[in-house]
């Protein structure tokens, strides 16, 4: 998955788990859970969407690598 695809996937997934959030104001290095007030179920749903959309298996140990927008894009496109 290239960076542009990963960027699109993360945006689409975030819009589903936090439909009220204004992603245009989200800083790429902001902690997603803090910035979008995601609870554990929201975050699990986010991981589920990213895993489905990328076809990549995401283990629980890797959750910290999805902490920010740019981390998530980097993780999925690596």
């Amino acid at each position: 998955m290239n960076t542009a695809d990963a960027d699109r996937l993360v945006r689409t997934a975030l819009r589903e788990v936090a439909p009220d959030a204004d992603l245009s104001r989200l800083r790429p290095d902001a902690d997603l859970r803090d910035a979008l007030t995601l609870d554990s179920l929201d975050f699990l749903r986010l991981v589920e969407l990213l895993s489905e959309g990328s076809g990549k298996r995401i283990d629980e140990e890797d959750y910290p690598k999805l902490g920010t927008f740019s981390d998530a894009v980097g993780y999925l496109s690596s």
Partner: protein
Amino acid sequence: MAEFRMPSLGADMDEGTLLEWLVHPGDPVHKGDIVAVVDTAKAAVEVECFDSGVVEQLLVEPGTRVPVGTVLATIAPPGTPVAPSPAPAVASPAPVAPSPAPVAPSPAPVPSPTPDAPVTSPLIRHLIAERHLDRNALHGTGPGGRITHADLDRAAATTPPSAPPTAPAAPEAPPPATPAGASPPPAAPSPVRASPLARRLAAELGVDLATVTGTGPHGAIDADDVRAAASTGAPPTAEPTPSRAPTEAAPVGPAPVGHPPRGADMRAAIAALMARSKREIPHYYLTETVDLGAALTWMRDRNRELPVSRRLVPAALLLKAAARAAVAVPQLNGFWLDGQFTAGSAVHLGVAVSLRGGGLVAPAIHDAADLPLDELMARLKDLVARARAGRLRRAELSDPTITVSNLGEQGAESILGVIYPPQVALVGFGRIVDRPWAVDGLIGVRPVVTASLSGDHRATDGATGARYLQTMAHLLATPEEL
């Protein structure tokens, strides 16, 4: 003849708005079938009927606000032939405040069953129509060939939604004639065909129905169409969301719907209930710091084997332990009514769900103590998604026997909660934090959570509450037995 009445959906509700009928006169219904959607200050609630028979008359129009106990419909004994009438014969049961724009019931009826059609409930029939599925092509896998939710999901996954018609409105179908003696025709009848829910959503979201493309029968606009129009019209980061089959399980889109206008009502409802709690209930509070090392290690090992969709979160373990402890200490599970404690018949665990955009609801997970962990986890996800979409079921709102407030990862370290009357206890969990912890004379770092119990001192004393917290801590120390 039985009467279907506006139910009370919690101690704080004395009136409600009939939002949508899911049945028509002449439809057979069974006890437990979901027949209507009622709007309360907190959520749109799906309400089931308590009798079996045939829907005779719908007495209240969608959009009408009536007191609890008002007869909404009459249900004739099974087998009674009922001539379907085109519109509710509004017998005007003293509506509290008629909605400003009463809307005509959607005149598009569900196709009447053919003799060999599979057996369906009203909700299923409604969903079939809503999802534009061909009922005769559906294969029912339930008892007696009944079509189940799962059958619909399967069909929806394989059947593409019917293409939206090009013309947004079908002017050849006027609203049904209003019966004599009924209320005046709806104000400003719009040429646009839309379901009542769609009209309400459109008003709340500021969507002009004339600009919405309907995907329902004859181009009628349904709620999903309005949500789609609202989301594509949103200015920031406008990018079309991926299209997907409209399955009920998907929490896409509807989350923010209805909350901004509902906010003030919900605030008032919470204010009234919490003020009553603090006025009437002498609370006592206990806390216990619980080592979650064993529970979280066990959970991570288990999650490693599983796809994301089946993984657990710590909240599921905490809720299960809270429910099991309530079985062990039944004095905390039930209600304070008429000056005495009445034990709950089972543990229906209320879960406080905070809503994006403010406010909270605390619907119940039924029989939570008996559910396997993965089932409890699935129920939790479903409940939270529906609570945030503003769509809950009657029983979920009206009968929790004890409630849990779990602050989760973003919360504070501990919570001393306010009991939901008429319940007698509230369990609180703070954020899970790593702390130094003494084990066998050595200091280690362990994940711990502060569990709290708020008890009604009229019903129990602190010793009972302490026993509850101890029981819960023991349960969490042996997670494989949860």
